[in-house]
């Protein structure tokens, strides 16, 4: 009796509510006729919580436009770079060309002609020069080249920027630098300017903004032609769960959130239209081993552990299949790393081989006691502790699998879920760990990945604050090779340098690259097609980055 009443009440309420939204929905779509296509709105979702009204493309944190990604369809970068192969001829965008000198300390940027800002003013090289000068004047917004820009000068349509150190490994960061209009930004402090009425060169204009969502409409005067998506709506959800629901119900059609079991949860809901794509690059997660304390101060033991850790299993179980498996013995993610592979390491694949690991240990003087526990040459039973912050479930699951792998060698490993702040402030910087997982900087070359793990330039003794090289690996040959790679002026020198580094990684195993962490995105092709696919990965598939302008310009209404 009571339940029936409740049911009718709920149904009644929902009918009224449905009516209300139906009206508003109709009102909303009626003005969508401009901009071509079938008028469907493309909804982009990110799990970033409520936003504040800040549309600045320059500030490193706190900007809604950068957090949700629409900064990149209003403002544009100098060049478009493909994350899968960052150094292969970038596509000219706001710059016609960017030419570096031999040792990558100076770049000449030629501005594109015929581009106008959305307020009608002409875009010139002065704007590029002005934006780069801002990076010198305000260190707070210079997050890519701290203290490394020497000078900027503009002459005609060419801007020259000089650096105080070679930027070969950072060149992509300059190409992806976003440009703002001088005539509007010259009188403001870019560290506090919230840019609520953004004027850019990009394919879209900000139409409305609320803490939940930003709506953008096509820029009719866009230099690249009129975009075909009639309207973009960037929505913010409070957490991964909410965005996952929105993506599976089709409420959001493009975004990125970690969906464990994405095949069943997301793709199976609409196999024809729902896709998840991973975008290359060199981002990875590394198991840092403390090279200066037992048991990892012995290269034989590090190598043995490397031989029993099953990367495929970890990627599948701990990374839910989202993070690609590392297959090369060099630890480099493929296919991004292919062009850097040392000749003698081509085709060398990681394999789990417990017997080989045991042989290695026997040769190094290890024995097994009556309980089948591993005993090191000093006569001590080998144990170690794996540590990562509590709540970082993918990492902790990976640690559990590594612990199980270590047990095959007769080693009792323990997993310690530490407090996150303690991990950041005490464990990681001071080297107060035996083994721990940590990410690396992505970067355009494998330099960041290897340098973060093995660069002697970041070496500090245990107990002092390390910024990278948390495992305290020290090999002068590697340190020199990494420096050479960064500053070399010819391709041959760079290949030789990176080959040296790879050889050391394989021989010394200073740490274990566990899986690669490329940019991943989910999207639905129900209304629009043309997103990067696994077969045609023309850009990083995420909506938050300078590549957004390129992807959006590639989208077309789906033909049914």
């Amino acid at each position, binding site marked *: 009796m009571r339940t029936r009443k409740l049911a009718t009440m709920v149904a009644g309420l929902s009918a009224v509510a449905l009516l209300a939204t139906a*009206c508003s929905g109709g*009102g909303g779509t009626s003005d969508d006729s401009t901009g071509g296509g079938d008028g469907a709105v493309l909804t982009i979702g990110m799990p970033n919580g409520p936003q*504040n009204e800040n549309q600045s493309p320059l500030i490193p944190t706190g900007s809604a436009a950068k957090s949700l990604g629409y900064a990149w369809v209003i403002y544009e970068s100098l060049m478009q770079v493909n994350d899968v192969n960052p150094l292969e001829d970038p596509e000219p965008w706001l710059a016609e060309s960017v030419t570096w000198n031999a040792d990558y300390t100076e770049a000449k940027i030629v501005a594109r002609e015929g581009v106008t800002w959305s307020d009608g003013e002409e875009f010139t090289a002065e704007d590029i020069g002005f934006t780069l000068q801002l990076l010198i004047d305000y260190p707070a917004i210079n*997050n890519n080249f701290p203290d490394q820009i020497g000078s900027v000068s503009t002459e005609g349509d060419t801007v020259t920027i000089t650096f105080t150190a070679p930027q070969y490994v950072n060149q992509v960061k300059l190409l992806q630098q976003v440009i703002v209009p001088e005539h509007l930004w010259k009188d403001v402090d870019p560290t506090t300017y*919230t840019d609520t009425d953004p004027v850019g060169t990009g394919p879209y204009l900000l139409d409305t903004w609320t803490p939940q969502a930003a709506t953008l409409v096509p820029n009719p005067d866009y230099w690249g032609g009129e975009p075909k998506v009639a309207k973009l709506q960037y929505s913010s959800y*409070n957490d991964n769960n909410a965005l996952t629901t929105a993506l599976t119900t089709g*409420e959001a059609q493009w975004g990125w959130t970690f969906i464990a079991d994405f095949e069943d949860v997301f793709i199976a809901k609409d196999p024809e239209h729902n896709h998840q794509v991973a975008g290359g690059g060199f981002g990875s997660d590394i198991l840092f081993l403390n090279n200066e304390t037992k048991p990892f101060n012995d290269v034989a033991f590090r190598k043995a552990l490397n031989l029993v850790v099953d990367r495929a299993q970890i990627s599948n179980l701990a990374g839910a299949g989202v993070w690609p498996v590392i297959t090369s013995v060099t630890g480099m993610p493929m296919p991004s790393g292919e062009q850097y592979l040392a000749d003698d390491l081509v085709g060398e694949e990681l394999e789990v081989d417990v017997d080989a690991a045991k042989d290695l240990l026997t040769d190094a003087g290890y024995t097994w006691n009556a309980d089948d526990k591993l005993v090191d040459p000093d006569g001590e039973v080998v144990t170690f502790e794996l540590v990562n912050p509590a709540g970082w479930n993918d990492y902790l699951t990976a640690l559990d699998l590594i612990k199980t792998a270590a047990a095959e060698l007769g080693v009792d490993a323990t997993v310690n879920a530490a407090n996150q702040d303690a991990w950041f402030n005490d464990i990681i910087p001071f080297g107060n760990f035996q083994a721990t997982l940590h990410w690396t900087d992505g970067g355009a070359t494998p330099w960041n990945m290897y340098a973060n793990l093995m660069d002697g330039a970041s070496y500090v003794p245990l107990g002092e604050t390390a910024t990278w090289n948390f495992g305290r690996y020290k090999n002068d040959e590697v340190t020199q090779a990494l420096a050479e790679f960064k500053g070399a002026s010819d391709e041959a020198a760079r290949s030789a340098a990176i080959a040296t580094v790879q050889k050391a990684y394989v021989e010394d195993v200073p740490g274990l690259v566990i899986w690669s962490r490329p940019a991943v995105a989910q999207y639905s092709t129900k209304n629009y097609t043309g997103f990067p696919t696994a077969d045609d990965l023309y850009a990083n598939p995420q909506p938050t980055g300078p590549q957004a302008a390129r992807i959006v310009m590639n989208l077309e209404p789906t033909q049914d």
Partner: protein
Amino acid sequence: MRFFVRRGIFYVVTAWAAVTINFIIPRLMPGDPVKAIMAKSQGKLDSSAEAAIRTLFGLDEDKSVWQQYLDYWNLLLHGNLGVSFTYYPTPVAEMIQQTLPWTVGLVGIATVVAFLVGTLVGTGIGWRRGTWADSLLPISTFFSAVPYFWLGLVVIAIFSVNLGWFPSSGAYDRSMVPAFTPEFIGSVLYYGTLPALTIVISSIAGWILGMRNMMVTVSSEDYVTVAQAKGLSERAVVFGYAARNAVLPQISSFALSLGFIVGGTLIMEMVFSYPGIGFLLYNATTNHDYTLMQGCFLVITLSVLVANVVADFVYAVLDPRTRQEG
């Protein structure tokens, strides 16, 4: 009158203590806001950005805690809650202003509804104890015992994902801009239905139970028997004599629950992606955003305090015994 003055002084001292504790607590927390931002980006933000962010927040300069405390009071007395790190450079006051109305509106209304309906139902059940109506108690208690996030997720799974009747997240249609138009208000009501309903369902048991038990106690009091003996109508006896006295403890717990509205709704806001202050505080805490945390704490402490003041005075008016001294 002396009673009110004494209570007034007591509350001013409490407010000072609350503000001071509010200043101290975030600083006792371990951790560093810049590290938290870097952790959140998990490699998406290059490690070279750390220095820039530190400069941006002004964290590269050292200030003594005492100086910070004085600055804090100075800003506070000017109505300035500082600038948020997470939402740099938006002032904290603006973020609170943006999120508070949603929480107060939705949870406030849901709490009032739960209180009114629960008290009424409790009155009925308590007056007619021992009838079929008693079976409502275990049903409502079941829903309050179920963890709220589970209830929320089940409701979303049924009504949003499977039936598609209600949206699963947000406070209004994302293509709309807030305005006082019938469409927008309709949208707010539509989006608020599921969250409000789940809050009412999960909190109503407390009100029913409290009211029912007081009614049972009160209905055997002499003055109720007298009222019945005078031949008054059933209705007059229930509401004029029994419920009127039984409701007193309900009022004080209602006042307290009003205070908790502001801070106690994090789970609802997470499950339904509702843009309220609970989630803002959660964000502030995970990001070590001291100023934002202080701002949120301040609003929460002050609202609990104000609710207390109101409850105190309303109680004193309703029940003369509490004002008597000595």
